[in-house]
């Protein structure tokens, strides 16, 4: 017994040593903020590299490619950006641990574009308490720019899901008379925010939501929900879903011989390649005439083929993320965020500090971003931490999107 334990103890210590890293914690180099040296900036990102949401890992990849491009041209005022990406498997508990590692062990300058609603929520208090910027959170949950006073270090990026729903609702209210709307929505904050926004947008108009069916992300298919929505007798179909389920919704509607007068879709699931699949070679009438909102330039949209920014996008992807699929619009999202981060850091200047960065991003006023639609500005202020609040409406015509009308802006809680 003693011998077993005599062997076990060193083994145990070895175990702990394996898990144990650097001995004495390095003394912080005094005055400069962590993550910034004379020629480098260290950023940290948590991203779902594994698990069921790994499709969204493209966001971090697009951003990373852009940072590499910027580094190749001298970096930000002479500092090269290193963006450490850590997998959180879309599990908020992993996000918390990964974020702590980035802040306490890797000593990053800021957390950039962390992906996921509950994931950002789980780390928000910690980051603000430790005065680490939570830059351009990749989530559209409404609560994210809404508590700006309480969380000065947290800045969102995309229009909130509620804003999207609101714009679609307002469009219905202005143009569809007494439409009867049936909604399929994902049963979480994302889907519910969109639905709430829609309801707010149609307030005080003749439009009514007469049926709303949730589905859980663990569902195999949404046939039952679409069948139920068809039987409600609605003439407008709103699809607030993630790509796979959005495609299913369109296809099942067609299979059930449902012919709604108008179909609405939200931004995440209306990328051109998704719509192409849903249109089943043009035979799906439900897809034709669909209306959606958009704020990013879609790489599969022919109208941007000769656009300078999208040419740059393709070039950057080819050089710095050659194995990635460049027609995936999530890369553009990441790149748009990375572009904004670079602009913000340039604006802070040579003396790059966390406080300085937060000041800049909380008072952002950038007129345009090459990866966003023309005219969309990035603005934040004291109580409003959503940089992007404008979007365009677009209509699916035959095999591509065509935007119409002017920019819509959302100003609301």
């Amino acid at each position, binding site marked *: 017994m003693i011998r077993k334990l005599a062997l076990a103890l060193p083994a145990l210590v070895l175990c702990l040593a394996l898990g144990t890293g650097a001995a004495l914690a390095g003394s912080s180099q005094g005055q400069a903020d962590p993550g910034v040296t004379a020629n480098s900036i260290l950023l940290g990102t948590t991203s779902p590299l*594994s698990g*069921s*949401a*790994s*499709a*969204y*890992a*493209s966001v971090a990849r697009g951003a990373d490619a852009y940072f590499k491009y910027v580094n190749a041209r001298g970096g930000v005022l002479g500092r090269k950006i290193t963006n450490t990406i850590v997998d959180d498997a879309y599990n908020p508990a992993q996000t918390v641990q990964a974020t702590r590692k980035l802040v306490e062990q890797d000593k990053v300058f800021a957390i950039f574009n962390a992906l996921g609603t509950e994931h950002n929520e789980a780390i928000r208090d910690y980051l603000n308490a430790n005065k680490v910027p939570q830059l351009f959170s990749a989530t559209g949950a409404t609560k994210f720019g809404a508590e700006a006073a309480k969380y000065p270090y947290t800045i969102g990026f995309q229009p909130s899901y509620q804003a999207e729903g609101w714009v679609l609702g307002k469009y219905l209210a202005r143009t569809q008379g007494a439409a009867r709307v049936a909604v399929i929505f994902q*049963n979480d904050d994302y889907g519910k925010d969109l639905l709430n926004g829609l309801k707010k947008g149609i307030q005080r108009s003749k439009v009514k939501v007469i049926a709303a*069916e*949730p*589905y*859980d992300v*663990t*569902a*195999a*298919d949404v*046939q*039952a*929900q679409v*069948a*139920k929505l*068809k*039987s409600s007798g609605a003439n407008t179909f709103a699809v607030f879903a993630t*790509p*796979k389920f959005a*495609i*299913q919704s369109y*296809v099942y509607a*067609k*299979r*059930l*011989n449902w012919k709604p007068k108008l179909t609405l879709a939200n931004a995440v699931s209306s990328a051109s*390649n*998704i719509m192409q*699949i849903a249109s*089943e070679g043009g035979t799906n009438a439900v897809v034709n005439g669909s209306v959606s909102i958009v704020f990013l330039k879609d790489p599969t949209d022919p109208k941007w083929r000769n656009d300078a920014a999208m040419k740059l996008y393709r070039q950057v992807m080819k050089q710095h993320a050659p194995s*990635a*699929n460049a027609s*995936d619009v999530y890369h553009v999202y990441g790149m748009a965020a990375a572009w904004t981060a670079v602009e913000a850091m340039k604006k802070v200047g040579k003396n790059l500090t966390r406080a300085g960065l937060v000041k800049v991003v909380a008072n952002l006023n950038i007129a345009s971003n090459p990866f966003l639609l023309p005219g969309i500005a990035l603005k934040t202020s004291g109580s409003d931490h959503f940089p992007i609040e404008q979007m365009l409406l677009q209509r699916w015509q035959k095999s591509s999107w065509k935007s119409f009308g002017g920019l819509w802006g959302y100003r609301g809680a």
Partner: protein
Amino acid sequence: MADFMQQVVAGLASGSIYASLALALVLIHRATGVINFAQGEMATLSTYLAWTLTTNHGWSYWPAFAVTLALSFAGGAAVHQGIIRPNEKGSVLRVVIVTIGLLLLINGAVTWIWSGEVRAVQSPFPTRTIEIGGVAISIQDIGTIGVVVGTMVLLWFLFQRTKIGLAMRAASVNPAEARLVGVRVTWMLSLGWGLAAMLGAISGMLAAPSVFLDPNLMAAILIYAFAAAVLGGIDSPVGAIVGGLTLGVGLNLLGTYVDFVGADLRLPGALFVILVVLLVRPSGIFGHRAVKRV
């Protein structure tokens, strides 16, 4: 009434997909006594294979289908020979861990090779819908049920009426005695794994045109397939079909008409079925009660 029937039809459509994967689970359990946690992922991999052949290499449907089935068979047998067999002599736990490792390996590989983007898969059946009494029925769904029933009949025939089927059953039930009468047990087990992988491939190729292809194609269906297999009797191919269709229709109707269940408790509903059946009648509707000799 038409709405009710429409839900029943939708339930039959979903249920036939659950049944198709359940057949693979039943086969593997019957032939090898193992519950393969990686069955779904293997089916997903096969489906991606078929997709690559038709989309990236421009093959037409049936040749791609045939090659995918052949490769799946080979893959399943190889997995058994290379990975499962060395661990069979250990405890049940080792096999469970190994199939879980396989699940992770294949799931990750699919994402790594093909990315998480959603893709469309060709269907062997026309996607037209016919309407009967206000209820829309898709020809593809009818075709799926047909293929699943046909496969079940073939399986039944294999097990009950062929020598190889007999050998497979013997190898699974009593390997020691089977060896004594000249059955090459290990080959029979590998054959079982190969066939199950083929069934999984068929299941994936039936499901993907309806549900659309992404790395999680089978992950969601797997649980429902387990529930269907358990409900019908984990050793019975007929049970897998009946279980799948019953489950599909039952969950749909529950989800539509019982507010408490709603849309979000359908998965727990399926799991509840697994639990209740395992507790009340572990052999399922059509299964046989195993009697343990002491």
